[in-house]
């Protein structure tokens, strides 16, 4: 290239740089501000996380303390959400319940993300027999209804907190594997990835620099939606007595205990379920909103 041509090119590039594109992060923030539903989702999720973390500080009572003078007390000044059959403060138990439910949800989704992500990347990038074995394994897990598989694992493994996380994590692993694998397959064939390979970049570099950034968007969406499923599954397990064990409060086991008393004390059944529904709605709003923001091509 002649010096003149080079300087022309430099000038053209500089000219293009004079009108800098909006930095991606700022653009994302701007779009987020115009997406009220996603914003509502973030607000709900953040409020729950804050409440769960701050539970010991903001809870009005001890979650296990029984007030024998206030059994099944209706919501009022002393107990804003009422009390249960042992006179335990429901507001406090709901706050501590957020700890168990969110811990299980985040733990299990992290597990599913790690296991499914690894399987998806390995299978998608290398292909061949390994890919086949991995994906057929995922098919097998997928062949069980999610809640049923979680129930079966819990029935055999026993109801420890770690087991709940593993059980739900296993159940939601195939979704991540499929999402990641599809994105890897889509990206792997792109010319710039092939170019990187031709320039001598190793597998690790190609994966980290060229493929991972491209699977971020679908992965974030999948994570948010999986968190909503994980909350629902955890509460179903606890409701059936196979998840978080009493007296440790979780929304599911609170609801199960409330069933015997709900006719005379409806608040015991109303609030735990509403707590589940609201956080699940939060994750769903967030997932939906993020999908629209990050990747408009993705449909339901």
């Amino acid at each position, binding site marked *: 290239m002649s010096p003149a041509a080079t300087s022309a090119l430099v000038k053209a590039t500089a000219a293009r740089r004079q009108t800098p594109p909006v930095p991606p992060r700022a653009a994302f923030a701007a779009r987020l501000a115009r997406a009220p539903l996603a914003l509502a989702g973030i607000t709900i999720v953040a409020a729950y996380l804050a409440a769960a973390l701050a539970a010991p500080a903001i809870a009005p009572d001890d979650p296990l303390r029984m007030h024998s003078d206030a059994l099944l007390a209706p919501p009022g000044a002393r107990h804003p959400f009422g009390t249960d059959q042992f006179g335990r403060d429901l507001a406090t138990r709901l706050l501590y319940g957020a700890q168990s439910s969110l811990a299980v949800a985040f733990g299990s989704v992290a597990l599913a993300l790690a296991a499914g992500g690894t399987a998806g990347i390995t299978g998608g990038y290398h292909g061949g027999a390994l890919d086949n074995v991995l994906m057929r394994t995922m098919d097998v897990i997928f062949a069980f209804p999610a809640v*049923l598989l979680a129930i079966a694992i819990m029935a055999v493994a026993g109801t420890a907190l770690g087991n709940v996380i593993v059980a739900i994590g296993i159940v939601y692993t195939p979704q991540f594997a499929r999402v990641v694998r599809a994105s890897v397959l889509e990206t792997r064939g792109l010319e710039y990835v092939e170019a990187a390979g031709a320039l001598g970049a190793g597998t690790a570099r190609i994966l980290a620099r060229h493929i991972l950034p491209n699977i971020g968007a679908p992965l974030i969406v999948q994570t948010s939606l999986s968190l*909503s499923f994980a909350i629902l599954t955890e509460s179903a397990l606890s409701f059936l007595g196979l998840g978080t064990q009493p007296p440790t409060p979780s929304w599911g086991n609170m609801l199960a205990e409330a069933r015997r008393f709900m006719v005379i004390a409806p608040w015991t059944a109303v609030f735990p379920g509403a707590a*589940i529904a609201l956080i699940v709605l939060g994750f769903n709003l967030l997932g939906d909103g993020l999908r629209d923001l990050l990747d408009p091509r993705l449909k339901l």
Partner: protein
Amino acid sequence: MAAFLAGRLLTVIPVLWGVSIVVFLLIHLLPGNAIQMFLGTQVEMTPAQMDELRRLFGLNKPLPLQYVDWITRILRGDFGVSLRTSRAVLPDIVARLPLSGEITLLALLIALAIAVPIGIAAAVRRGSAADAAIQFGGLAGLSIPNFWLATMLLLALGNVGTIASIGIYVGFFSNPAKNLAVMALPSFSLGIALAAVMMRFIRSSLLEVLGHDYVRTARAKGLRERLVLYRHVLRNALIPVITVVGFQVGYLLGGTVVIEEVFALPGMGRLALAAISQRDYPVVQGVVLVIALLFVLVNLAVDVAYAFVDPRVRFA
């Protein structure tokens, strides 16, 4: 079509094989001593007696051989014997199959009855306030736990007439009216979340089809909007819904386990939950296997139905 059917059947076999391995391992990897667990703690045995029992049950063989023994019996229809009632497992499961199947089917019908008209309405009025409200309602419907909805419905309607007949199950063919009265609430509680999923899918499927050129052509030649919708759009937009049905049957089959518990209905799910609390593992194993088998077969049927109504699938 024959080639498609054969190909699809071939993919089902490894999945079923894998399912059987998972169900087998679920029980055989049980922590602790399986025999002692089965017999309960009240039975004291000498090590020699334990070895004899192990030999009797084939537990001294290597795991793969145990699997072969087990799967051979399963394929012959021998699902073993309940540890609590000593009755054969399979007939007990089959006897409870109609109830769980009925809840699943009714929930599916309820979901379709809600989702199709609302999904169409939302797509046709895209961007309107009504569309936004429907969209939000869909998300809310997805978010409500089915067992809580069921509990709230019981709380609100619990003492109203026949609905109070919680746990009093009558077979559909012996008394259809009574049966449907009992099944209405369970099926509705289960179907709502599915209605939300399908409504969202139908809406986006319709929107996609509405953007096609042939729809514009139909409008351009002066066809009334209603005819465009009925004659050109709906057919193409609703066919993909079949695929969602197959996938979501898993949600229904899993959900019925929980819903049966709420309404004290004697279905497969309740059988499994009772067996879990009694450590009656052959029954648990049997129910899990039967439900997974049902799920795989329903998906196969759905795929075949899809290929039948949409020839493009067969050649894809």
